[in-house]
Every structure is written in C-alpha cells, then in structure tokens.
C-alpha cells in the first residue's frame, strides 16, 4: 500500500462551514499549527469554496443547500464535525461524501489525522470511480469490437486471425483495442496487415 502523503499540507486552504463557536476556534488553532490557511463561512459556502483543499462542515445543523455542488459530488475531501451522534445526522453526514469526522467539543488534537485520513479516502474513492467509468466505457464498446472482428474475418478468414489483426493495429498505433475497433469500422475493409495481392503495392 502506498504511504500517506505528508509533506504538502503547508499552505493548503481549509474552509470551516460552521457558525461562530468554540469548536471553530479550537479547530482553527490546530489547522494553523499544521500550516494551513483557514477561512470560516456560514451558513453557505461561497463560490471560492470550489477551490478549497478541505472543507470541515457542521453535521449537527447542516443541510444540502449549503454546498455549491450536488450531494456527494464535492471536489475536495470533506470532514464532518459531529456533536449529536444521532443516526439521522450521521446518515446525512455520510450522504455528503465526508471521508473523516471530528467529534465536538474539539480539543487539542485530532485534526491532523482527520486531514490525512480524509484525503487518503477521498483520493482512493476518486481513483476507484475513474476506474469504474473506464470499465463501463469498455463494456459499452464491446459491440464495436465484435463488429470489427466480424468485418476483419472476411479478410483474414478466421476469428483468431481477425482478432490478432485488431490487436496488432492497436499495438502499432498505441491505442486500446476498443479504439482500434472503432477505427477499423470507420475505415471500412482496409485492415493494416492485409496481405498484398498480386504485385501491385
């Protein structure tokens, strides 16, 4: 497993979405000590929040309309500030996509580990969803590959040879099998490794 990135929190921007409260000052103190820039906003996030590196939000009084993005679609790691451990509030905090939490009252510690855990889980989730999108696209292109293979079979005579022609096309052009298949279909019946007939080049 890859280690936690630790050295680039300095200068990162954290927004605390919470009404003025002792929790905010305790949180700010810890964030400043770690080397982050801190701004506090309430009751809604301003447009500049989209550029923040971390958002801490109040899970007790929070609601979806506070965030300038679709529920669960935050472009940065979110950290829930939980006072009331009621199931409904925890459910809502989870629905925001928060990947770490800090319990209120906020004391002398807890912020540094929350930052690292939130960012690590956020990045893992983002990588996973990129991979899922990629696989979905591949599944969608399955039919393209089948059609290209069928088309190439007319030239090459067998399914194995057709597939191998397609793979060699992909490797030569350094593109995916799916992209190569799309090219073959666009181009019609002119596979690259077609054997020359007669003496004409």
């Amino acid at each position, binding site marked *: 497993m890859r280690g936690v990135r*630790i050295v680039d*929190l*300095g200068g990162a921007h954290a927004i605390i979405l919470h009404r003025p409260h002792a929790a905010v000052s305790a949180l700010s*103190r810890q964030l400043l*000590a770690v080397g982050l820039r801190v701004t506090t906003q309430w009751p809604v996030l301003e447009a500049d929040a989209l550029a923040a590196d971390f958002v801490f939000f109040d899970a007790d009084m929070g609601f979806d309309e506070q965030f300038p993005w679709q529920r669960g679609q935050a472009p940065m790691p979110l950290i829930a500030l939980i006072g009331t451990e009621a199931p409904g509030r925890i459910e809502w905090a989870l629905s925001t996509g928060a990947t770490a939490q800090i319990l209120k009252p906020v*004391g002398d*510690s807890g912020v540094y580990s929350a930052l690292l855990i939130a960012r690590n889980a956020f990045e893992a989730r983002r990588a996973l969803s990129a991979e899922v999108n990629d696989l979905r696209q591949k599944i969608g292109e399955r039919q393209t590959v089948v059609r290209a293979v069928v088309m190439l079979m007319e030239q090459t005579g067998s399914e194995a040879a057709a597939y191998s022609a397609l793979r060699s096309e992909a490797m030569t052009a350094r593109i995916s099998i799916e992209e190569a298949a799309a090219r073959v279909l666009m181009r019609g019946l002119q596979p690259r490794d077609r054997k020359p007939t007669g003496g004409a080049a």
Partner: protein
Amino acid sequence: MKRSVPIGILYSRSGSYARISDACRTGALNAIAEINADPSRSISFEAIERDPAGNVDNYGPLCEEILRDTPARHIIGCVTSWSRKEVIPTLEKSGGTLWYTVPYEGYEASDHVVYLHACPNQHLLPLLEWTFPAYGRRGYLTGSNYIWGWEINRLARETIHAVGGEVLGERYLPIGSLDIGRMIEEIRATEPDFILNSLIGTSSYAFLKAYAALGAENPRFSPARCPVLSCNLTECELDDIGAASEGLIAAGPYFHDGSQAFVSSHEAAANAAVSTLANLLEAAEENTRLPIAALLQTPAGLQSRIDAKTHHTPQPVLIAQVRQGAFRVVHSGGLVAGDPYLSQPVPNTLRRLRAVS
C-alpha cells in the same frame, strides 16, 4: 518581598533514560535557584517535584496530582514522547502547561505544551542533508520501540528514498533491552554508509559499545567510513558510553564547548524554560492564572520567541562530532524556526529526484 510561584517538576530520577532526566532536572533546579537569588526579579519559584521513576504509567497520575493538589499551573518535565502524550489529556483538562526540554519527532502542537528543544526540521533533516554528500545515502536505521524511533526512522526512510538512497535495515528494541547482537550482524552484512541511531538510554549505550568493537576489528565500520548519527545523543550520556563515543555525530541546538554555562542542551533548554516562564509570570500577578495561549499574547509572551501558533521555538542547527571525548561542532546551519508538521518547503538538496508513483 518576592512573590512566590509554585511550579511542577516531573522528571524520573531512575530508569533507563535517567541521565537525560537528571540533566533536564539539574538545568531546571539551577535556573530556579538563579531566579530566586536574583534581586532584580519580583518573583521566586517553589519547585513541586514528583518522580515517575521511569514508569510511563506514573506520568499521567503524577501530573494530575500536581495540578489538582497544588496551585502550580506550569510543569517542567517529561523526557520520552510517550510520557508527554500521557500527560497532555490531564493538562488539557486542568488548563496546565508542560515545558518540554528534549528533542522530539514533531507532528504535535498542543495548546498545552511549550516545545523548547529541536524537532525534525531542526535536527534530522539538516543532519541527513549534511550526511549524504559527506558519507553517502545508504543508511541503516535503529530505534527504541516507541514513537520517537518509529517516526524519526519513517522520516529518515522517506528522505533517503527521496534522494535515491537506500535503507539497508531497520530494527527496534524495547526500551531498556540490551539485545543488540542482531543489529550488529545486519550492519556487518549490509555495510551501510551511515547508521542512524534512535535508541535511547541503556540500549543505545550497549549498541554503541558493540559497534565500536566492530569498528576496531574492521575499518569498514570506523567513524570515518560509517559513522553513527543521532538526534538524541547529548553530553550527559558520554560518560556512560565511554571510549565508544569517539566519532559519534549528533545534531542538536547546543553543544558544550567547554566554556559555556550549561553542560548539555537539556540544561540549556530547561534553563530557558524557567527563565522564560519567569518573564511571562512576572509582569502581573494575575498572569499566574492565565493559560499559556493567553500568556503568549502578553508583551513578555510576544518577546519570548515562542511561536503562538505552534508553541515551538527557533533553535540553532548544529552538527557536532565527538572528538577526544567531547563534542566539536563541525557544521552550523543557523537559527531555524520550529516546523512541527514540516509544512515549509523542503530544501532543494532533499527534494525528490525522481517521480515516485
């Protein structure tokens, strides 16, 4: 008539790391005696001492005893990070402050601790930066089995890898263990360029003696070819190590050159703790009841050089080598502010040379 202010002293008088405790305690008690004898000072200190006897489980209860049973709000004490972490919840609950006078591994900025010795950007990173061109980038890492050794070695490993070096081995011993045979064998087998030793107390002394014996037998392991580096070795332990200390390299904020007042950085830091505290409390009687965060906002606090955000202090970066039984400074990196979370840019010489995915 001086105003008397009680302050807590929480150092172990016995146990594996008693030498360091003694050095800190001596520095604190001497400084208290100085303040008390100084006619220009309007306050005097009354030391309230508790002895955890080297047992980590005694620190929390004894810290609580001082804060609960006496009017003392400030405690000078703790050597291991483990013991420091044990007292922080108690300090937080009672609004007390710990003045901490030994090097530590960073990644902490408690609102209830003042850090008066070096953290990694003031010891480990400059030490490695200096070592790589002088001796090489292939290191062997040792440490005692708790947060100090673990975190120092993690940071060393990351730094060594960042410059394309190699970690040839990494091994830990329980505090007080003398079972150093395997480390020596691994070092003999892997032939590193340097050894970073974060063992503490008696384990460290045993290791250093065995390694010096290896060096006497095979020059490949002499201080000139494969030195032992440390961020926690100070003058107060040289007698225990004896002749085996020759050639050891240490980083720290202070080394005794024979002429200065304090015989180790621990004494110097403990002295700074007591005199800074005197400056903070002297200004007004109600100051004795203020938490450290508020004290740092007073004029004396602003002059104290204690960073209000992190409670860390600027420290001189010095690298010294034991030559003829005493430390000689071989490199001075100037005064550097404490950066406990390493949020400041890393020096070019320690930056990643290659992209790591």
